[in-house]
């Protein structure tokens, strides 16, 4: 779709304006993490200081929330990778009755608004009299993370040629050997990318978590409490900067892991 004439100025301005709209607000968060004003969101900041990073470092409640978030994200990601890969293996390779329904079921937890997933889980925990715990949070997170891994894995499996697997079987490898030596190396970067995205998704999820966490607080829940009842506003900004870094890095990694595959796949589209 290359055009000889190039883009018009209006189009360039509109596109650039849209992208700035998407990214300028985040820069502001960085600025506010250094402000000396702690009672309001005054702009421009009256002065700049590094003090809040030290304050945030010394806060036990932030460390506790961070620890919980990391553990939840790690376990949820592992579960999602396992379930997502299995489902992708089934859907990509064979046609069966109800195949469409299966893909719909996997996508549903993120297609429906998060509040529905959250409140249904809560209602179910209530009915089954399950007390809130670390595992109730994981249960919710893993459910909406499956789709991310599944999407990545299914896209890769569809591109991988079936003849490779047949060739491996013809040469005498059994199903497990084929999986280990042929399918898994092909799939590895897609799985890793899916896992990274799932991790980022879980790490800053707040809507489902408010319904499944009970009294525990993950880092986003901690932030939400601070937003509703602010104490030291710049400390919240420091945490926000950290959350941005902790979610951007895995996503960037996921992008570079799947990039080559996309170019190769583009040929056959």
């Amino acid at each position, binding site marked *: 779709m290359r055009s000889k004439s190039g883009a018009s100025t209006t189009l360039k301005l509109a596109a650039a304006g*849209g992208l700035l709209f998407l990214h300028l*607000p985040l820069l502001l*968060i960085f600025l506010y993490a250094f402000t000396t004003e702690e009672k309001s969101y005054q702009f421009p900041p009256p002065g700049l200081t590094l003090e809040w990073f030290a304050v945030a470092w010394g806060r036990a409640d932030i460390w506790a929330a961070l620890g919980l978030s990391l553990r939840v994200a790690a376990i949820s990601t592992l579960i999602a990778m396992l379930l997502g890969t299995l489902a992708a293996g*089934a859907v990509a390779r064979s046609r069966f009755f109800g195949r469409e329904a299966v893909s719909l079921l996997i996508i549903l937890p993120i297609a*429906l608004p998060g509040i529905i997933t959250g409140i249904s889980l809560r209602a179910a925990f209530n009915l089954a009299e399950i007390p809130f715990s670390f595992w109730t949070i994981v249960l919710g997170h893993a459910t909406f993370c499956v789709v991310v891994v599944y999407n990545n894995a299914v896209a890769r499996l569809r591109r991988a040629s079936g003849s490779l697997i047949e060739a491996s079987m013809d040469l005498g490898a059994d199903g497990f050997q084929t999986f280990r030596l042929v399918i898994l190396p092909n799939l590895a970067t897609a799985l890793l990318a899916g896992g990274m995205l799932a991790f980022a998704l879980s790490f800053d*999820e707040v*809507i489902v978590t408010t319904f499944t966490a009970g009294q525990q607080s993950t880092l986003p829940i901690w932030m939400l409490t601070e937003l509703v009842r602010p104490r030291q506003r710049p400390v919240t900004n420091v945490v926000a900067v950290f959350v941005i870094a902790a979610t951007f890095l895995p996503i960037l990694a996921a992008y570079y892991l799947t990039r080559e595959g996309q170019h190769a796949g583009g040929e056959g589209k």
Partner: protein
Amino acid sequence: MADAALPLRAVESGGGLLRRLSDLLVTRPRLMLLVLLGPPLVWLGVVYLGALFALLLQSFFSIDEFSGLVRREFTLRTYGELLQPANLDIIIRTVTMAASVTLASAAIAFPIAYYAARYARGRWKALFYLAVMLPLWSSYLVRVYAWKLILAKEGIVTWIFAELHLTWLLDGILALPVIGGPSLSISYLGTFLVFLYIWLPFMILPIQAALERVPASLIEASGDLGATPRQAFATVILPLALPGVVAGSIFTFSLTLGDYIIPQIVGSSRLFIGQAVYTHQGTAGNIPLAAAFTVVPIVIMGFYLWGARKLGAFNAL
């Protein structure tokens, strides 16, 4: 040759337990399918559908007005309560917001997607893609929070208007009925801006995907046949990009319908569906009414998806 003989021998001798298990799975695709699909289906079926069903079930219960406890017998009373004017107001307000957010994000997303699909190349293309991907996947709460800083009365927007000597304009906008308010962070306009900001990437990506699929030859052909660029856009590109717009609108519409964090942090005190669900299940303890409220977005999205399917939006996802 010697290498090829090895596995052959393994087959003749019947192999180990693993080998037999593998043979069983390979020769019986149905069994293989069951093994693959079993765990994810059990998880999603039990945890997710089970929970969803538990919720729907509760919407047919009602709350006892005197004891405040949930009465577990079938009734449509809760749905009757849902149709009271106060609750209908909440539903209409939320749907109106979802529709405006969807329209505005389509308008802003289209130039970005169009540029990324038709003109950006190489490094720039990657940059565009990342610039849209990063906010889509990350830091939902942080990005909402950023707007609390921006829209605050003492914040940057007020400052910019003051520097430009346009404070009168901002005051004029805030004085508008319905969408205005004491400050941007306590008005529908503020809520709208944040919704727009947060869901915009969900609109850009499907439109870009749809535009990428429009073959260049088609546009050249329309030019050769005498269409002006404007005509080519209106009669060739736009109709082909429409499924992408509809696909994006599924996200912007559905996400706005169910969100309760954004209107809670930036907005007036008037409730949206998500907040109504949250308060009814939490402080009010009225799970049946909260459940009935969640049925509203489910039903609306059901119709929406049905319509989107007819327009071919699913192929653009």
